[in-house]
């Protein structure tokens, strides 16, 4: 019996208090494509970064072709024949393709012979695997798909026998992705071992031989692809955790509060992030947006919150909002009655070095109630109000003077919620309300959101936690690739169906 190309044994890795990988073991046979699937933050990328020497594992062993092979740094990984294509390419933007290829594996002190050799080798690889790129083009002038080819070529040029690709299709068009899969199949035929990290079920079913599922830093299972199906994988991915039931009466929706028509956003790099979103949220209902992170949900929240400009029409209570950013910003949105609990609590929602009381007026600091006179803020009044808010929202410890960074994730989130909910907004935008939040706080936060709904407010909820979407929403819209894939009622759908929509698979294809 041949030894596995890769065998990981009890790999663990923590970043500070966060356990990214916990006791992970896995075996991958040579000449196969092995998929690793899991939700965002499940620890897939960390595991692979350990395998390619970018991070050092806290514990565990790595065997390559049956031999114990410690991989303390990138050099060791290259020697062991491991090549990695990171999700964020590690390329020098203003270097040519050839220069990027030879970086670190130059033949000698002079570049000319290395470049000549690489040029020849590149021609050879291009013929063999159809990996064609102009060797003299600068990286910054290449499309994302071609940049990815350069990364694959880099690995092959280093004689990699094991190729790891981290979410390789996330940045590709469907046609480019198909091309990539043809290349991967060819590599497999040559006897190379490939690990494909993805959260897209379609890809797993399409190309892998075996698949491992990761959840919350742990490896839940490894199965043969032909013995499984997307529904089963979706189940393993999302997990069968205890369903947190949210007690809520049926919604009593009123008039439309938010009407969005053909909303489009193009980011600074010219990538279309929202490709014509249309939706509406009524008073007294929660519209949940389900989707894998990075499919445009963040941009939706930001353009509604006045942070990013966009095009299209957005009506709030029938009045049009400015989307150009010329006469609007986060502050003007708040004045119009939109409160916003941002997805990134630590970089947007809170100033981590500010005390709790300073954070409870963030964005509302121009409220006359907080001014002592024309010049000064009434810090005493703010502190008193904060203390009361912390009481009402059960923030622990209830100390307004404590800096935000010293609260736990759940209590940080309660501070943000207290700030946004108690402004009594018409519309609440809330992103990832329970990310990094402990069970007890989750329950509390969910209850508050439902209370707000029952008070007749409109809530737009974005979450990557399917279960949260299912238990909180009155209606569910699924986003994929900047578009709405479909709307469902929570009572008439389940995690499997939503999971497939989230992966970009429409019913007829599944």
């Amino acid at each position: 019996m041949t030894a596995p190309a890769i065998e990981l044994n009890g790999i663990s890795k923590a970043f500070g208090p966060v356990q990214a990988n916990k006791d992970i073991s896995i075996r991958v046979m040579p000449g196969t494509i092995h998929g690793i699937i899991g939700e965002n933050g499940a620890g897939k990328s960390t595991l692979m970064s350990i395998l390619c020497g970018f991070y050092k594992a806290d514990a565990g062993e790595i065997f390559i072709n049956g031999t114990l092979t410690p991989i303390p740094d990138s050099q060791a990984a290259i020697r062991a024949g491991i090549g990695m294509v990171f999700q964020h390419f590690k390329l020098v933007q203003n270097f040519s393709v050839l220069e990027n290829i030879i970086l670190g594996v130059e033949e000698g002190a002079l570049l000319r012979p290395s470049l000549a050799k690489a040029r020849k080798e590149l021609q050879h690889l291009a013929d063999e695997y159809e990996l064609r790129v102009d060797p003299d083009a600068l990286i910054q002038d290449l499309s994302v798909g071609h940049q990815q080819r350069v990364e694959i070529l880099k690995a092959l040029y280093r004689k990699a026998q094991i190729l790891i690709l981290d979410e390789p299709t996330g940045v590709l068009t469907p046609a480019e992705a198909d091309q990539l899969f043809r290349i991967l199949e060819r590599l497999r035929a040559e006897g190379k071992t490939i690990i494909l990290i993805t959260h897209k079920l379609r890809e797993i079913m399409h190309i892998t031989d075996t698949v491992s599922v990761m959840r919350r830093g742990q490896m839940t299972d490894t199965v043969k692809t032909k013995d499984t199906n997307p529904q089963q994988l979706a189940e393993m991915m999302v997990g069968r955790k205890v369903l947190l039931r949210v007690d809520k009466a049926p919604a009593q929706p009123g008039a439309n509060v938010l009407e969005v028509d053909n909303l489009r956003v193009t980011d600074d790099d010219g990538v279309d992030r929202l490709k014509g979103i249309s939706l509406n949220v009524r008073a007294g209902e929660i519209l949940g947006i389900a989707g894998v992170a990075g499919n445009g949900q963040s941009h939706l929240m930001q353009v509604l919150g006045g942070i990013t400009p966009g095009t299209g029409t957005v009506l709030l209570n029938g009045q049009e909002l400015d989307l150009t950013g010329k006469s609007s910003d986060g502050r003007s949105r708040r004045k119009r009655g939109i409160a916003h609990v941002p997805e990134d609590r630590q970089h947007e929602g809170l100033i981590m070095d500010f005390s709790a009381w300073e954070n409870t007026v963030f964005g509302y600091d121009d409220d006359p109630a907080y001014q002592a006179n024309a010049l000064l803020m009434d810090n005493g009044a703010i502190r008193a109000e904060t203390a009361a808010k912390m009481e009402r929202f059960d923030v622990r410890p209830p100390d307004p003077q404590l800096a935000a960074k010293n609260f736990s994730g759940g209590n940080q989130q309660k501070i943000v919620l207290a700030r946004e909910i108690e402004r009594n907004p018409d519309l609440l935008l809330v992103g990832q309300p329970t990310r990094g939040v402990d069970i007890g706080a989750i329950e509390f936060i969910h209850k508050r959101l439902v209370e707000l709904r029952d008070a007749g407010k409109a809530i737009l909820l974005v979450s990557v936690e399917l279960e949260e979407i299912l238990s909180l929403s009155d209606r569910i819209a699924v986003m994929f690739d900047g578009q709405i894939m479909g709307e469902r009622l929570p009572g008439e759908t389940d995690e499997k169906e939503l999971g497939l929509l989230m992966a970009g698979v429409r019913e007829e294809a599944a």
Partner: protein
Amino acid sequence: MSKMPKWADIVLIPLINLMLAFALSALVILAIGEDPVEALILMVKGSFGSTYGWGYTLYYTTNFVFTGLAVAVAFHAALFNIGGEGQAQLGGLGVALICLYLPWPHWSLALLGAMLGAAAFGAAWAAIPAWLQAKRGSHVVITTIMFNFIAAALLNYVLVNLLRPPRAQDPSSAKFPEVTHLPTLHDILSPLGISFSKSAPANITLFLAIAACFGVWLLIWRTRFGYQLRAFGKSEPAAIYAGISPTRIIMITMLISGGLAGLMAVNNVMGEAEKLVLNATEGAGFIGIAVALMGRSHPFGVALAALLFGFLYQGGAELALWTDIPREMIVVIQALVILFTGALDNMLRMPLERVFLALRSEGK
């Protein structure tokens, strides 16, 4: 939980860093064959041993409070204004023009006018780098350095070609009219029956500096603008989320910073020299960097650090007078303070954090 108790962060670390800077300075003094202990005694006596010494120490302190506050305010918005020197020089020009060309009936009115001129000229000199940072993304550090040199050349031109009285040799302006002369500490204290050296330059501007400290404290921690400024300095994405305009913060902060640096001129140009001379700032703008770093960008800390540097400057002058240790020893100490409290901060912080973490886990 924070990695370190607050007192360690704001007292212990600066203190150890200061000790390190002083220890190395002592080694330098030893190396050039002088006695550091004797030098210290001489410095203390020279700067605090007489009202004359106090008068000079407080005069220097006043300069450094203004330039230190200028750097500190910008630091709070995560801006590094190295241009205090140039801004203070321009402030001097403002003071000179106000004092020379307007007919003042009384020194108090002249003082108000000079303050306005000094702050306006200093702020104007900071406005261009600020605008370039906010709108064109040019790094404010590099542009303010360039503006220091441009200011020096400009002042040189103005003094040599425009402000120099006919037939005068030195590149300096005419003496300011008698009426604009500011009361010194001697003038202020003698009615109260306290005798203070007549020849020391400390003047009423000292109280302005104290007021400025209080004003900056209010601005940073009590006003809405200060709140937004700090928020922007801590996290730009959060500021944008909240609807705080980065351009507005950068512009106003740099105007305030430049204005504070410019205000220094009231002390040295109007209060001491009573005319505008070449290189009137004598590097005080740069000392502001050390003062702000040492003072942790807090007005109270800045005031203390300014006093420390005032002591060093006056003490250093005494050293140069009575020993073979040249004045430039102060520049060495200043460099070491910047090095340890600024650039090498992590050298001490990393191991100390580990110590405190270990202590805490043991205490559990």
